[in-house]
């Protein structure tokens, strides 16, 4: 691949990113590029900065140093850049964060109406399309509290897809779920990956990482420690901390 091919297909780049919470150094010299269609799994012990990293990409957190580029647009702190990037980037949270006072359909239709300026009818058609996509259209008129955790998370995925993003960020999407519901969410994510969505997933689901990821990135104490293809990552990790972490994680599976 030539250098120009590389920059063209590059969707996200983080260069020398630094993030502080007061005196706590949350992200240290993070360098990462993600190409179009790539699936990245981010893992690491809690407090290692993996959630912080993906939250910086859609500006839920601000950075103190370095540069983030998404879809060729530099995050320069302007609200225009923030708007543009949030239109390209969908996010799924650990705790779903569905709007509790709205039905499933309303949850999905809100952003297309407010951000894309669609009419209610257009937005609801779009919402139904993506609810169908995550196979939950039959629950469209229910409220989030009436659904199981797995169903709620699938609705959250549909809600993010309604803005037709180029990139999806998943922040521990299955950590808050009962074990029997993890699969339905992972299956949805796998099918999304098969359709070519660019994805960054913070997750400890190593089966998912093996099956879907192009690269697995291991973080600890705010640094990227190791980065490798899943086969290499799981079979021959280089760093001591990665080995320890994998030992702990895999012991539970």
């Amino acid at each position, binding site marked *: 691949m030539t250098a120009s091919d590389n920059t063209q297909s590059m969707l996200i780049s983080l260069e020398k990113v630094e993030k502080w919470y007061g005196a706590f150094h949350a992200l240290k010299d993070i360098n990462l590029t993600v190409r179009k269609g790539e699936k990245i799994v981010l893992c690491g012990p809690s407090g290692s900065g993996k959630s912080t990293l993906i939250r910086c990409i859609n*500006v*839920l957190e601000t950075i103190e140093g370095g540069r983030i580029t998404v879809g060729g647009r530099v995050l320069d702190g302007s609200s225009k850049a923030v708007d543009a990037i*949030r239109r390209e980037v*969908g996010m799924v*949270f650990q705790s779903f964060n569905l*709007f509790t*006072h709205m039905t499933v359909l309303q949850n999905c239709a*809100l952003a297309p109406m*407010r951000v894309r300026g669609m009419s209610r009818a257009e937005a609801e058609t779009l919402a139904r399309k993506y609810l169908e996509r995550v196979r939950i259209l039959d629950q469209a008129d229910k409220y989030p509290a009436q659904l199981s955790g797995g169903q709620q998370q699938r609705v959250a995925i549909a809600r*993010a897809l309604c803005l037709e993003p180029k990139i999806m960020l998943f922040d521990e999407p299955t950590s808050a779920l009962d074990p029997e519901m993890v699969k339905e969410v992972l299956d949805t994510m796998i099918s999304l990956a098969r359709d070519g969505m660019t994805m960054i997933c913070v997750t400890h689901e190593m089966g998912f990482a093996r099956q879907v990821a192009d690269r697995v990135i291991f973080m600890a104490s705010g640094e990227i420690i190791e980065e490798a293809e899943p086969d290499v990552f799981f079979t021959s990790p280089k760093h001591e901390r990665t080995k320890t972490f994998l030992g702990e994680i895999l012991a539970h599976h």
Partner: protein
Amino acid sequence: MGPIGANEFLFILQGLKWTALLAIIGFIGGGVFGILIAVTRVSKSAAARAIAAAYIGLFQGTPLLMQLFVVYYGVALVGINVSAWLAVAIAFTLHASAFLGEIWRGSIQAVPKGQTEAANALGLHYVSRMKDVILPQALKISMPATIGFLVQLIKGTSLAAIVGFIELARAGQIISNQTYRPLLVFGIVGTIYFIICWPLSHFGTALEKRMAKAAR
């Protein structure tokens, strides 16, 4: 002692009409400005937050009676002639907006942070984030406290008597003076207040219980 006939009773009901109107005006005026105060109170700007906090402090920290005096007589002193209605509407609006603003500020902050984050991640702007996502949930959380304040406000309207309003309590006083039957008259007046306020309080408590159950 005079009799309490239909005329006297009608006079008291006339007073009730003013009490209801005053409470409605205070609640609507206070509601509109209260939302502004609440939103200012949680704004990003520290100066705006401080101003809203000072406003709340001022009107929560002084008696409603004094606020009525200041607006009715004080404003007249600087040469602006305000009608009793306008003065009372202003005073009750100021008073109610401070209390409702503080109640709603708490409710806005009680909406889980994840809701704001999800709205942000979806690219929703401030107005939509507030109007579509945060305020409807905050309003629901605030219902018991808001209803509690409405009950206080209804009883507080009796203070409007000092600027010449013949509302429920004042009407009772007049009838009592005419008939020399204070116990009976104020018994009736008290019962009327109770008939209005108690179901409201009860409704507030029921809402609170229902929400506590839903939160479980």
